[in-house]
């Protein structure tokens, strides 16, 4: 079974600074997808960024980028120019590329990000 580990329960960053959230995963599969979801206090789950394992290029979405190290099974999220609105719980998630598994997302335990003035 796949597992996702987020070793940082909490992180803090100053406004306008850069922060990196860590995520590692364990799988024997070669085809899979990785995601970062944001959950603000409103509790809505918002997709921040996604990465297909077959793509070597790291995904970027505006101020958000990932460092995908497939051999090391590492998938970190970098937030540049942090804003107050970035304060939220961030979840790393894994999805198998095998649709027979039902497409379930396996989540890490989350990292609570605080943004300070």
């Amino acid at each position, binding site marked *: 079974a796949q597992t996702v580990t987020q070793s940082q329960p909490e992180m803090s960053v100053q406004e306008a600074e850069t922060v990196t959230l860590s995520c590692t995963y364990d799988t024997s599969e070669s085809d899979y*997808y990785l995601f970062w979801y944001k*959950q603000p206090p*409103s*509790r*809505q*789950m918002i*997709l921040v960024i*996604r990465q*297909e394992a077959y793509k070597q290029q790291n995904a970027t979405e505006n101020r958000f980028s990932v460092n995908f190290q497939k051999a090391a099974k590492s998938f970190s999220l970098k937030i540049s120019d942090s804003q107050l609105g970035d304060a939220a*719980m961030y*979840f790393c998630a894994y*999805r198998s590329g095998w*649709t027979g*598994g*039902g*497409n*379930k*997302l*396996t*989540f890490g*335990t*989350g990292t609570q990000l605080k943004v300070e003035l």
Partner: protein
Amino acid sequence: DTAVSQTPKYLVTQMGNDKSIKCEQNLGHDTMYWYKQDSKKFLKIMFSYNNKELIINETVPNRFSPKSPDKAHLNLHINSLELGDSAVYFCASSYRGGRDYEQYFGPGTRLTVT
């Protein structure tokens, strides 16, 4: 135009009662899911339906019974509620195959059992 909607958003009930949570998606997806988020914010899959067929049942107690009348709706019925059922329940939907695989989540239903 809410993509994935859930009702109710909040549910407070007593132990032993039976309750239902409804979910609807208007994205044309063929697969729907129920996730449970516990008090420590940990999210875990409970069920997944593809075109009204159950494809994932992650060792959830029999008191939980999902029902999918059509591929746009997935309801969750819970019998004999227990204190440990208190959590936030999220519905989500996606396509099963292809590369358009993003799961869209509903706003969640916070269930409190007293």
